């Protein structure tokens, strides 16, 4: 089954699942309240969005110079930088490193890019144990499923489900109390942190003028992953670079507010390299893997280049009425929701065009994006690109050719409207429904006997 048909099947299933709908609604309402409160901390939230948009815009327009500046600084402090054109190259580098260094256990803090490049299976194939340390990621890893949401990976699960899971997989769990569940995870993961030879993290930002990688977590797992193992590997998209350390004064609060409604994430960390000569702890090796994987092509598309501004806050997922009905797993892509629908065709090709069509174009995503990406208009651009690349089904192309023919003539248009009404009546009489895709979910429309056009002509208006 192709991706589009699979999406249709999954979305139909989820849209009918009222329990699922309730769970998401509740989560989203909690988020809405927290985010609204968070925004009141700003004198002018829109100005904050504009500033962050401008910072990312500047970064993208100077991407090569900034990446070179960042790389120079990292190298000068004893770190390594590897440029990976695609997923395979990134995986190979990290796998080779793990193999060469005798790595048996890896602890990971959250990184969407590592999902994008399918890193974990590659390391597991080498015999490494890979442990997700973000609690949400850890939970879905135990369940062998992908993350449900880019910020809250286990949003679809209740404490009862998580409690059952933990009772099966961990020790010392007797109830479904979140505090007890978190404590059990802490105990288990602490052992992993202290024994792992390699810590893998993502990057929220790459700071060019400081040569440092910015990583934000609330749990502190990012801190431990980047402190305890002797090798620290950062996996990041090339678009994460920003010009200056000072830019974080805006990006950090805005990311936290849009992501969770917090003023700033609990641990906002900057790592510049391996431990220095005078430091008492820290990794001995530091590697940054810069992943392209289609981003430089998106950069070349001037109309849609701004999509690279994304700071992966998840606000658009939370705002999307379609996401709220179908949830994250339905998309079956690394990046879900509006940003996922916009981005995925660029990263993975026209097989994922259907995501751009699975939207009512309401525009709520655009109105919440903290870096002012015109998300819903980019869905329109993707749709146009799909047509221009001849990706549409022949029936649809034919349909619009006929539509155009009808719309180019006033008389054809009004005749058609009459024909349509007549056809609907005939169909009803003989039991055929030409409007089945509509009437499966809607009662048949009650059409007026006389159209406005007729009334106007007869002077009844």
């Amino acid at each position, binding site marked *: 089954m192709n991706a589009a048909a699979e999406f249709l099947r999954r979305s139909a299933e989820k849209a009918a699942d009222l329990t699922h709908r309730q769970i998401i609604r509740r989560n989203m309402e909690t988020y809405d309240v927290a985010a609204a409160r968070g925004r009141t901390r700003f004198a002018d939230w829109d100005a904050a969005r504009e500033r962050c948009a401008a910072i990312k815009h500047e970064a993208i327009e100077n991407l090569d110079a900034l990446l070179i500046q960042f790389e120079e600084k990292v190298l000068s402090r004893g770190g390594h930088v590897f440029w990976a054109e695609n997923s395979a190259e990134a995986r190979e580098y990290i796998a080779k490193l793990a193999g060469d260094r005798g790595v048996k256990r890896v602890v990971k803090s959250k990184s969407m890019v590592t999902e994008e490049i399918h890193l974990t299976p590659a390391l597991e194939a080498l015999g490494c144990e890979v442990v997700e340390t973000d609690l949400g990621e850890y939970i879905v890893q135990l369940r062998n499923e992908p993350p449900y949401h880019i910020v809250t990976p286990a949003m679809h699960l209740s404490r009862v489900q998580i409690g059952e899971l933990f009772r099966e997989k961990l020790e010392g769990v007797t109830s479904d109390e979140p505090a007890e569940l978190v404590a059990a995870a802490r105990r288990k993961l602490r052992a992993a942190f202290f024994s792992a030879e390699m810590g893998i993290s993502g990057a929220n930002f790459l700071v060019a003028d400081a040569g440092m990688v910015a990583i934000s977590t609330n749990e502190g797992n990012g801190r431990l992953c980047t402190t305890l193992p002797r090798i620290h590997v950062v996996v990041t998209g090339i678009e994460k670079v920003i010009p200056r350390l000072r830019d974080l004064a805006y990006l950090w609060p805005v990311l936290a507010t849009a992501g969770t409604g917090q003023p700033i994430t609990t641990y906002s960390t900057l790592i510049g390299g391996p431990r220095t000569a005078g430091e008492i702890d820290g990794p001995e090796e530091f590697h940054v893997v810069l992943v392209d994987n289609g981003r430089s092509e998106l950069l070349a598309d001037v109309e849609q280049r701004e999509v690279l501004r994304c700071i992966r806050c998840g606000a658009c997922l939370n705002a999307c009425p379609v996401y709220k009905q179908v949830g994250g797993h339905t998309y079956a892509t690394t990046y879900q929701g509006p940003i996922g629908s916009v981005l995925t065709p660029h990263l993975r090709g026209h097989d994922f065009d259907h995501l751009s069509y699975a939207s009512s*174009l309401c525009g709520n995503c655009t109105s919440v994006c903290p870096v002012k990406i015109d998300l819903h208009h980019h869905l329109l651009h993707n749709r146009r690109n799909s047509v221009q690349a001849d990706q549409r089904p022949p029936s649809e192309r034919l349909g619009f050719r006929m539509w155009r023919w009808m719309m180019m003539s006033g008389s054809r248009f009004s005749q058609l409207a009459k024909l349509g009404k007549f056809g609907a009546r005939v169909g009803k009489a003989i039991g055929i429904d030409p409007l089945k895709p509509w009437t499966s979910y809607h009662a048949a429309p009650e059409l007026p006997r006389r159209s406005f056009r007729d009334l106007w002509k007869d002077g009844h208006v």
Partner: protein
Amino acid sequence: MARVLRRIGCELSFPEDQTCCGQPAFNSGYWDDARAVAQRFLRVFEKAECVVGPSGSCITMVRKFYPGLFCGVLPTYSKFYEFSEFLTSVAKVEDLGASFPHKVTVHDSCHALRELGIKEGPRKLLRNVKGLELLEMPHAEECCGFGGTFAVKFGMISSAMADTKLQNAVTTSAEFVTSIDPSCLMHLDGVFRKKQSPLKTIHLASILASEATQ
């Protein structure tokens, strides 16, 4: 809509040759087809001083998307108005002398809200309607799920979104859901009746056209 506009003294004409603004093709990515139909649309209304339409999505197409289709904003686009917008911003009339003694809640159509900034206007007009009790539903700004071909291509999601809208509207005890967009209303009405809900839909223009029966 025509009745209301006449009531406030507008001189009306209806170019009978009009067909469509081109949005269905545009939204589906068929921009060449949309452009041809859009060009015709502009020609049909070329001589008009001011054009009013009872649809936020059509007017959005003209004012917000025609510039991209035709590369540039021409003055002709700004003469197109959505009906409630025309009343409040151009005619500057907020009391139409209407009477509609019912409980009514407003659904904010996405195009009107997010592309044209229409939110308070319809509410101002409704507050002046005699006997009308205006109720606000939770998540009034959330999409109803129509989205053009989306409603047909992704019917399950679309109808689930309308169902959510129904659940939200029902909490207000309103008898009618109103909006300024016929596509939203047609979609919601179809789903409400399919689910056998007593909730009714009505276009803002129909409310404003209602006069007290003596």
